[in-house]
């Protein structure tokens, strides 16, 4: 019994205070959160993911979308059409397919997501992040 407790406590101490596993994850989350808040500026957000996220970044689009929805709620966050189904077991694939969806400024404004945050994954493994505000479509002449 004492051995079990020693193993359990030792593992937890190692994770928390030696390899700082939780601290690293918190820092990662904090960076993502700061990016999302900066991009949103208190308004709805459209997320774009381009490139083939792979390796350790394979689930990044999923994680970023779920995090954005939670962090910014009740502000709307979209990756595609509002009717785009993103369910638990196919979410990653559904978000990847939504990358083909390219709405214009008018659509974004109409759906309450006037701010855009784009993540572009390059073949070299870098992720480029851009933020912009949706521009309304020019008035017909």
């Amino acid at each position: 019994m004492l051995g079990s407790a020693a193993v359990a406590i030792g593992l937890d101490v190692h994770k928390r205070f030696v390899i700082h596993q939780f601290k690293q994850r918190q820092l990662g989350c904090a960076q993502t959160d700061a990016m999302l808040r900066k991009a949103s500026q208190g308004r709805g957000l459209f997320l774009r993911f381009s490139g083939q996220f792979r390796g350790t970044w394979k689930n990044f689009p999923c994680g970023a979308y779920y995090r954005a929805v939670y962090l910014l709620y009740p502000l709307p966050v979209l990756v595609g059409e509002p009717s785009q189904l993103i369910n638990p077991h196919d979410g990653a694939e559904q978000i990847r397919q939504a990358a083909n969806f390219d709405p214009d400024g008018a659509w974004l404004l109409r759906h309450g997501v006037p701010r855009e945050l784009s993540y572009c994954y390059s073949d070299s493994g870098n992720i480029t992040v851009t933020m912009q505000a949706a521009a309304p479509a020019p008035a017909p002449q």
Partner: protein
Amino acid sequence: MNPAVMWCAIYLGCLLIVGYGVAAVLIAPKSHLERFGVAACLGPGITALCLIALSMCGWGPSRPVIGLVTVIFAAGGLFLWKKQPPTLTQPDGGPPAPLWWIGLCLAIAAYGIFAVGLDALLYPTIEWDAFAIWQLKAKVLAVHALHPRPAYFDNVSLSYSHLRYPLLVPMISAGMHAMTGRLDDPWQKAPFLLTYLGLGAYVFAAIKKWRGPAAAAAAVALLMTTPVIVFHAGSGQADATLAAFCGGSLICILRWQRDGRWQDLILATMFTACLAWTKQEGLVLAAIDVAAVAALTPHPLRRRNLWAAAAFALAVAVLYLPWILYSRNLPRTDENYTQHLNLTELAAHLPRLPQIATGMAGELMSWVDWGFFWWMLPLTALLSPRRLLERPIWTLWILLICQLLAYVPPFMVAPWDLNWLLEMVLDRLFLHATPAAALLIGLQWPQLPRPAATADRPAPLVH
């Protein structure tokens, strides 16, 4: 003082008051630790159920609503407690424990409390399921009442958050948002520290009554420091809370078995209803509880027991009915296990059984996830084999095995990649079973022989 800290403390106090309102009536007066255990586990559960009921009537959680619920339970508890006849209190079973042993086990449990406290009170919500599912729902419930139905429940782009999952745990956190007046507060996980402490206190008090403080301290020290529990208890997910309700219901069922007191049956009903409202797995556990009340008592076919089992089942069903009605029209876009759990599909997926069995066995033996927690089960059974004939022990073994076996059919029909699914969820499913295992470890704990003068003399009941 930061106002948010003050409101957090007030909310935790409200949860405890609601729990004490129930515990004061249903638990013997001198069992302080037991009362705290019940209050800390059931208080958040009952508060959440009341908030859900009011939210379904159009009143979302707010300070006045939470205050009203607290006052009602405090007043009701005080009124009924004063009318309560004196009850017999059983002294502890087993010999007193050496102080150094209690101190050592307390120190071990204290580390668990420290680690869970860090997660619940200081660290932000970073676990995937916590922010993607449970705490997202908490924000929805904090912002919108359940009537009229919020747009969240029809939004299929949020279907990954399991739109049909029950709402007890999110409502506990929503209550905190309502109290602090902030959606981004860092205190939404604080109530789960309470349920973690309650689980430890209640399991300790229960084992102490049966086997004495030495066994109780050992079992609780093991329970509260298993890596999986420490990881999940303060993370903002629902699994540790489900485990707390599971432990509470088991203790009450064992007491009902032994004493046949209606107070224990009422408590079991509350715990079981909270189980059903916490996760889908809770429904299965609730069904197992009903079967246990019906079948695992000394005289199962006696009229009193049959009526008790029927009343228990009916009460749990009535308490769960609002969610059945509310969720019946929600989109079905996730796994939908109930549709797939039929004989045809189970037969078609029989080849998955060896993989599932291997995965479960591997998880039980994983020292990274559990230390040697699960190894203590067979070890303590082997050290005290005669104890296996005692009713509470074989009852717990039956319930534990039923609980673990109940998880097999959903694995067989799950649409996910099975290896990935086993890796992702097995530790949490076994987390639900840890209270049963801890109770078994405590009840099977080998005892040192007593001095001859006091051996085998039954301890008198005292008021």
